């Protein structure tokens, strides 16, 4: 591993990301969708709050009208799913495009280790993801100005978003290394991410032991406690393992290309 080479690759990839329209469109759509969810959750919250002033029963039903529980937690849930939908669009070009245009031939004959190439590209995409996630901070900031939410669950919720996004990127960079067709890469990432997302739906259908395994494998189960403000090392380890596994698979996939 060579930090300088990683930095050089990272710099080039970032320049490439931000000089194309794709990233801006993806970020715009991401903000529109998350903004829509935020608006709806907040509007519902305020309508119900007004009604609850005259109807105590309703207040109790509505989870005692806690802004963290009724706005922030569902918001993080929606953002995490929209993130899963958007990351394949960011990762699909990373290797597929270089294969299509042939630039991979030069890249792999430069004196750089494969691992530096993979990490440079991964980190560049991570920077884009952090930009996207950072821009959503306007929603909780508004809530802090207007209301009185707990700050800790917001912070851990963001940690969760970054981890789930980072995991999705590692899977996306892997599928991008498998093909020279960006659409194929994006479709595979979508499919695999949705599998990791929906896998917990089968939990009630299988035996308890297998159910535990399935819900452990599920990519969104692990942000549940983070968005409640609980940092469990098990969740962090899950995401880190997920990232390392798919980066490792990406490296292997590059190597087998050399052997073929």
């Amino acid at each position: 591993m060579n930090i300088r080479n990683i930095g050089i690759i990272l710099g080039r990839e970032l320049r490439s990301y931000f000089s194309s329209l794709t990233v801006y469109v993806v970020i715009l759509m991401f903000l529109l969708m998350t903004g829509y969810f935020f608006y709806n959750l907040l509007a519902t919250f305020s309508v119900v709050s007004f009604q609850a002033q005259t109807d105590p029963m309703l207040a109790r039903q509505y989870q005692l009208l806690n802004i963290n529980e009724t706005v922030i937690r569902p918001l993080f849930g929606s953002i995490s799913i929209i993130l899963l939908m958007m990351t394949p669009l960011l990762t699909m070009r990373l290797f597929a495009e270089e294969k299509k245009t042939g630039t991979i031939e030069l890249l792999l004959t430069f004196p750089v280790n494969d691992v530096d190439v993979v990490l440079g590209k991964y980190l560049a995409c991570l920077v884009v993801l952090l930009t996207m996630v950072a821009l959503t901070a306007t929603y909780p900031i508004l809530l802090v100005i207007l209301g009185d939410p707990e700050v800790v669950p917001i912070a851990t919720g963001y940690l969760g978003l970054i981890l789930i996004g980072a995991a999705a990127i590692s899977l996306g960079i892997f599928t991008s290394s498998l093909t020279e067709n960006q659409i194929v890469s994006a479709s595979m990432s979508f499919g695999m991410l949705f599998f990791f997302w929906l896998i917990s739906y089968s939990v009630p259908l299988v035996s308890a032991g297998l159910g535990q395994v399935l819900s452990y494998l599920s990519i969104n189960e692990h942000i549940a406690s983070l968005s409640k403000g609980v940092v469990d090392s098990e969740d962090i380890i899950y995401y880190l393992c997920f990232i390392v596994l798919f980066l490792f698979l990406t490296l292997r996939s590059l190597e087998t290309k050399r052997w073929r």
Partner: protein
Amino acid sequence: MIEVENLTKDYGEFRAIDNISFTVEKGEILGFLGPNGAGKTTVMRILTCFFPPTEGKAVVAGFNCFEDSLNVRKRIGYLPQRVPLYEDMKVSDYLRFVAAIKGTPAKEVNRKAAKVMDDCGLGDVSGKLISTISGGYRQRVGIAQALVNDPEVLILDEPTVGLDPKQIKEIRNLIKDLAGKHTVILSTHILPEVSILCGRVIIINKGKLVAVDRPENLTSESSRRMFLRINGNAQMIERELAGISGIKEFETAQASGEANGYIVVFDDEKRGRPGIQSMIEKNNWELMEMRPLETSLEDIFIKLVTKEEA
């Protein structure tokens, strides 16, 4: 500088190159000649460590391409065939990127990129996006990125393909200037290019090494063919031609006008030519045209391949 021993590469069932061995001395320009699909690119990709050979070994600048790939890659500059470049970058940014990734110290990156742009005549387009520059400039950017870290070995895969004649001349001059300082391997399927640029030429066909020789020798061998256009009685000309010593064989060829055309193959040009001259004088025919025929790569192949089979 480059040693290749018994190199073989299979793509699945297909054997792309078959047991090729050769060496290249320091400062030499070696031409790699062969028709499309002969395996030129495969050899180059092995030398540049893009993929390993199935069998055999390649050593560049003292390092094994497979076992010590990073050390090889530090010492080579490579221009792949279709000149794949990052279209969304400016020329100057791209060359700075390549300089940096090839290990140029940060302080030197700007200077090296500027120097190589100057050497390759890229000053006019340095601020343009690569996607917007012409084919000739693209090719030069490709050569510039190969040269940027002053590598010991340059590997150029069809460096002049798709250029107009003026650009071809410029690129050839650029490559010629590299001789001596760098060891160069260049592949081409254009015969004259090899004669102009290379000290030595390797011919491969269907993955097999057919010949290693100096380009003069290859062309001279088949330059003993000449086209004649003679105004006279066809039957008499043919009878006379058959009697001239030094002419191995001849055949009639299409000729414009009323004159008769022949392609003459010499086995001894020094005796054959005066023979033709005296024949013309003796019969008082009119010699309308007499020119050596351009040797095509095809001719050399046919000659070499049939020679090998015989």
